[in-house]
């Protein structure tokens, strides 16, 4: 893992990618800082980081596009996958390298609150909370980028796909509000999910029985829920999408609340996508 980590960090800085990422992020966050804090003489730092979310969202694809797609494209995955490394070591090495670059950039932005603290009072704990939330959310974004990179064959599709996925996540809260909340819509949506799951299982195992069994089990669970606790279906669509709303959980951090469940949520989210990435690479070798 460390070998891959070192190699990735080095390649961020031997190609322009690392520098571009840092330069753009620092420039835009600097502009936000200047306009929101300095020019308005405000010590309220949260809005700066909140605005930075969108900038970061644009930059994650740059950070992750070549991680796995680049190896596949260059055929260097043959070296990695035929070496005694585990696939999980490769994925984790790449993930932590991207996270490290992100942390390094964030560390530089710590200058902003330091500048403010020289001229006025800032609430240090709140800012630390903000940063913690930003780090956790950013790491989750990176895990999505890594996953998209593992399913795309080249860097361009990887970048565009990551950007699309993140943009959707950014819009989830807004989309959620417009969704129907009736009982029937919830049942229909759950049905669609079960069917999708069946199809995925069928394609992953190429086994018609596995797909059917999952379908029957899913239908059974749906029926049980329907007869015992109908209310679960009300607004189910929105609730389901809400599970992917990374930004909503960030709000509690920016309000100065250190919410343990949010921390666990982010860590689980990253872990799930890293796991999917590993499975994806393994699967590609099987099919």
């Amino acid at each position, binding site marked *: 893992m*460390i*070998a*891959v980590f*070192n*190699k990735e960090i*080095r*390649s961020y800085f*031997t*190609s322009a990618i690392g520098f571009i990422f840092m330069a753009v992020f620092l420039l835009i966050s600097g502009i936000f800082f200047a306009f929101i804090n300095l020019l308005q003489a405000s010590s309220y730092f949260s809005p700066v980081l909140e605005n930075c979310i969108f900038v970061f969202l644009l930059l994650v694809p740059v950070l992750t596009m070549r991680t796995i797609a680049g190896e596949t494209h*260059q*055929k*260097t*995955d*043959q*070296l*990695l*996958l*035929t*070496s*005694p*490394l*585990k696939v999980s070591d490769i994925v984790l090495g790449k993930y932590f390298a991207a996270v490290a670059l992100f942390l390094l950039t964030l560390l530089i932005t710590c200058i902003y609150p330091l500048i403010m603290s020289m001229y006025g009072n800032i609430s240090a704990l709140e800012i630390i909370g903000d940063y913690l939330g930003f780090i956790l959310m950013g790491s989750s974004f990176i895990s999505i980028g890594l996953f998209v990179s593992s399913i795309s064959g080249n860097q361009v599709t990887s970048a565009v796909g990551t950007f699309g996925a993140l943009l959707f996540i950014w819009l989830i809260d807004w989309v959620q509000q417009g969704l129907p909340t009736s009982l029937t819509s919830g049942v229909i949506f759950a049905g669609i999910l079960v069917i999708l799951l069946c199809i995925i299982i069928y394609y992953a195992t190429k086994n018609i029985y596995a797909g059917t069994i999952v379908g029957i089990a899913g239908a059974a669970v749906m029926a049980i829920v329907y007869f015992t606790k109908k209310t679960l279906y009300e607004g189910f669509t929105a609730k389901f999408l809400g599970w992917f709303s990374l930004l909503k959980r960030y709000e509690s951090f920016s309000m100065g609340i250190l919410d343990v469940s949010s921390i666990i949520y982010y860590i689980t989210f990253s872990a799930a996508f890293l796991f999917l990435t590993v499975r994806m690479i393994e699967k590609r*070798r*099987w*099919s």
Partner: protein
Amino acid sequence: MIEVIDVTKRYGRHVILDKINFTVDKGEVLGFLGPNGAGKSTTMNIITGYISATEGQVKVDGIDMLEHPEKVKKKIGYLPEIPPLYPEMTVEEYLRFVCDIKKVSGPKREESLKQVMDTVRISDVKERLIRNLSKGYRQRIGIAQAIIGDPEVLILDEPTVGLDPNQIIEIRNLIKELGKRHTIILSSHILPEVSAICGRVLIINKGQIVAEGSPEELSQQFNYSSKILLRIKGDGEEAVKTIQGIENVVSVANQGVKEDNTVDILVESKKGVDIREQLFNAMSFANLPIYMMKPMNLTLEDIFAQVTTHEEVEK
């Protein structure tokens, strides 16, 4: 050392490999021969664990690839068709990275790095970016990468492709040298290469092994008759008539004049019968001096063409 048992690879309905079976003994240099798309690279990718077989088993040194992939992968050095290089690294950085992922560490590391770079002769470019190096150097770095950590088995997929003739000879000599200490599987579609380097040859076509044996065995196996090329001074028609009178001669063909006052004649005799002495006596009796007599054994090219173009070949 390497056992490939009933390995089948399918992509959907498309069968790439169809129940391939073979073994490679320790210290052997095995050549894989076959037209493009025959399944050579797929077989190699399966042995090295890059992709998995749909069915079947691969064992290296008695260890199953699926059960202990890390252990098996440690024993194998692999040069894929396209050398897996990072263009943005220098040669030395790259080889150090390979050392890291192959877990070559401690005092052995520097020593083996130096040794590997000397073996493939890339020490003079170690400070340079791989991006700026020629194809020949890249191929050699690819080989260097494979032999780092001194694995027992080397798998080289078309190691001389895209090189100029001098480099090809250099790489071949290098492989011969490596063959003294390693078990090697080598693929190629260039026949002289395989016959020059390998002790045993497997010919693969359309996912199946169609012929197997040492280069000599193969040429014997497919020699249904023996041909001899003669260059004779004198009249062509007279010579042909004289030869036709000899026992066991199957056919005689006049090949035309290649040198002044001589004629080239191709004589085919029954399999396993040596007619050279009778030829000499008959010619000398008829006062037709022999300028040249050359047995025409089937080359690997002929065998290759036979087994890959005709589906039904007597074995």
